[in-house]
């Protein structure tokens, strides 16, 4: 681009393309259209070649993730199965005390839901926002066979006093619309009170914000550690003679080819209190037998194991960039009077930045979403947000909550990516 000004031929080329707007082919068709037509076939063929992959990604990646994310703000577990009381909520304002019509609608919906065996689903939905509500719904459902007689308020209260709770009615009002931000509120430790105002949850129940912070902090730390450990290795790989560097490369890649579970469990063998590292330390007399270090089933274990596992993701991009840096740059700097440290800091290191950026971004994004390793060696203090997402997916079955947490995670990674692009420029990324 910039060579244009220097190149005498460029001026001719520019003039020619300036006239190009009016150019036509030999038989009088506009040149631009003729060019597009002649390339259309090649373009169509290229599209057909990528079509299978495109379809695969669409079906296995984009659509499921889209559906999953939809659950984070759309949950019709209550509104679909409780149509009449939902209609009453829709026609009245927030803060309206339930009148007899409301109780009648509730009784009718509960009866219908109990017969359709969907009352558990309804209870589960309310239970997300008000713990204990599920058993209220199911136990009421069991005593509802045969329907209720008016007055419905007294009849329901007779089955369970819990129906008079204003908090319950507030929560049901929230749930009566399928679209809700409540899962996102819960994901940042917020909830709504009876009047629908947003407030912090009980201090003892605040867990997600802390987990997000811990996830980001640990990911940052692990990224830093992989950089400190990976940079010299990558440099060695890039500068050693081919035969030695190939051997070293295999050593770097070997863990890459080993099963993640094998690697994680071998850390258990090494780091546990009766493990190899502790045994050696005791044998050397560094620590007493009763002072064995707790290095696993806590944050330390998560940090050590994840640093090890993610190290190749830092080494490989760094290596691929370093390999292209001609050694004569450092030599030139040295001959110009720079000490080896200055030559490294001002000449070599800046040229490794594309690889460092790629490696850091890769390691950080992988670490933020890491699940298996913290689950196995993290204990309770080494759990990350992904473990919480998994818990909501598999044990509490609160998929909407899992989706909200995942969406927040995704959004924050995207923000980071955007920030990186602004600060470093994504063009400067070099993955290999």
């Amino acid at each position: 681009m910039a060579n244009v000004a220097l190149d005498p031929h460029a001026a001719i080329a520019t003039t020619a393309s300036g006239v190009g707007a009016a150019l036509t082919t030999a038989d009088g068709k506009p040149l631009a259209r003729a060019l597009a037509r002649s390339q259309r076939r090649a373009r169509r063929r290229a599209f057909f070649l990528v079509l299978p992959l495109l379809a695969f990604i669409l079906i296995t990646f984009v659509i499921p993730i889209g559906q999953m994310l939809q659950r984070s703000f759309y949950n019709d577990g209550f509104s679909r199965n409780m149509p009449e009381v939902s209609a009453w909520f829709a026609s009245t304002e927030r803060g309206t005390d339930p009148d007899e019509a409301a109780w009648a609608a509730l009784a009718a919906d509960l009866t219908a839901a109990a017969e359709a065996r969907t009352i558990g689903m309804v209870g589960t939905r309310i239970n997300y926002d008000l713990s204990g509500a599920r058993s209220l719904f199911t136990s009421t459902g069991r005593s509802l066979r045969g329907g209720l007689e008016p007055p419905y308020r007294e009849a329901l209260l007779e089955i369970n006093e819990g129906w008079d709770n204003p908090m319950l009615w507030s929560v049901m009002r929230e749930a009566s619309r399928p679209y809700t931000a409540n899962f996102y509120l819960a994901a940042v430790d917020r909830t709504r009170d009876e009047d629908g105002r947003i407030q912090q949850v009980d201090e003892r129940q605040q867990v997600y914000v802390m987990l997000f912070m811990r996830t980001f902090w640990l990911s940052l730390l692990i990224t830093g550690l992989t950089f400190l450990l990976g940079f010299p290795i990558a440099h060695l790989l890039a500068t050693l003679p081919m035969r030695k560097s190939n051997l070293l490369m295999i050593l770097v890649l070997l863990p890459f080819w080993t099963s993640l579970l094998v690697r994680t469990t071998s850390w258990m063998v090494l780091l546990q209190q009766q493990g190899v590292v502790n045994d050696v330390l005791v044998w050397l007399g560094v620590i007493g037998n009763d002072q064995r270090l707790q290095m696993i089933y806590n944050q330390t274990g998560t940090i050590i194991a994840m640093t090890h596992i993610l190290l190749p993701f830092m080494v490989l991009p760094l290596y691929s960039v370093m390999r292209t840096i001609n050694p004569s740059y450092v030599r030139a700097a040295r001959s110009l009077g720079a000490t080896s440290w200055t030559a490294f800091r001002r000449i070599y290191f800046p040229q490794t930045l594309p690889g460092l950026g790629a490696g850091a971004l890769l390691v950080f994004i992988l670490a933020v979403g890491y699940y298996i390793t913290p689950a196995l060696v993290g204990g309770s203090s080494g759990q990350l947000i992904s473990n919480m997402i998994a818990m909501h997916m598999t044990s509490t079955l609160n998929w909407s909550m899992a989706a909200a947490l995942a969406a927040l995670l995704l959004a924050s990674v995207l923000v980071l990516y955007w920030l990186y692009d602004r600060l470093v420029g994504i063009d400067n990324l070099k993955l290999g």
Partner: protein
Amino acid sequence: MLDDRHGDAFVAFEHVQKSYDGQTLVVKDLNLSIGKGEFLTMLGPSGSGKTTCLMMLAGFETATHGEIRLAGRPINQVPPHKRGIGMVFQNYALFPHMTVGENLSFPLEVRGMGKSEREARIKRALDMVQMGAFINRRPAQLSGGQQQRIALARALVFDPELVLMDEPLGALDKQLREHMQFEIKHLHERLGITVVYVTHDQGEALTMSDRIAVFNDGRIQQLAPPAALYERPENSFVASFIGENNALPGVIEEFEGDKALVRLDGGGVIDATPVNIREKGQRTTVSIRPERVEFKPEMMPPGAHTIEAKVLEVIYMGDILRARLAVAGSDNFVMKMRNTIGQTRLDPGQTIRIGWHPQDARALDPV
């Protein structure tokens, strides 16, 4: 060996040896003195040890044995950044993440120079290579010739007394290369710096150098000014490496004063000047430059021996005519004739007799 003009040795290699693997010597017993202000070229085929010598002088390789001195001071233990030697690399090695100005500023910054002095020196150095307008460009935005000039300016900006150049013009096209040869030569003359220049291009070496050291097999084969090197090669390698050359193998038959009679393997006796040949009966290779071969008797000294030659082809090359002859059993004997109006035209198949001044035919070691 040292030229008188240059006084005491500014750079000296003394019995320098270099081995990379501990089994073979890349540089074998190098002795070389370079005078202050001299333009010395290390010329040789790849693998001859010339670049290794340059790297040892710059400090990027250590001498396995021997001593290197700069301005009388041994520098074997001095790290490269303290040697104060400017260097131009084959690929220019301009720092890609810095502008031209920053590239030139770098050697001044690491020397702790103030901003105003830096700017003045950068401007002066850029003007010297006519690149003043490019101070804010990045190396990637420059053409090869422009990068070459910037590399030159960067190596000179901190006023080094010695500048090393490692095949600096290798990546340029022919026309630009010839232009840059003169520019570097003129800069050298104007600044009075000492230049050690490495190349494998003999034309470049002949054009630019005060003296040329021809390297082969880890040794200096000959160290001489360009004219002496071309006209009086001291061994067969130098004769064949510098310029075009006819080599005729034979045996010394007789010494006549400072001449020798050589009986060629392919038959015939010729005159030659013995160079590194001592005894009768010794095998030799006689080396004759194509432009010194004559076929008209009036151009030869009286009593010169001549031999028969058959013209195989004549190639018209514009300024010269190049005839390929069959001489003494060899089909690759070349004779060059100036393309003048009166020049006799030879035809293929014609038989002529060729001869030369005895000092132009040099009896060297057998190949």
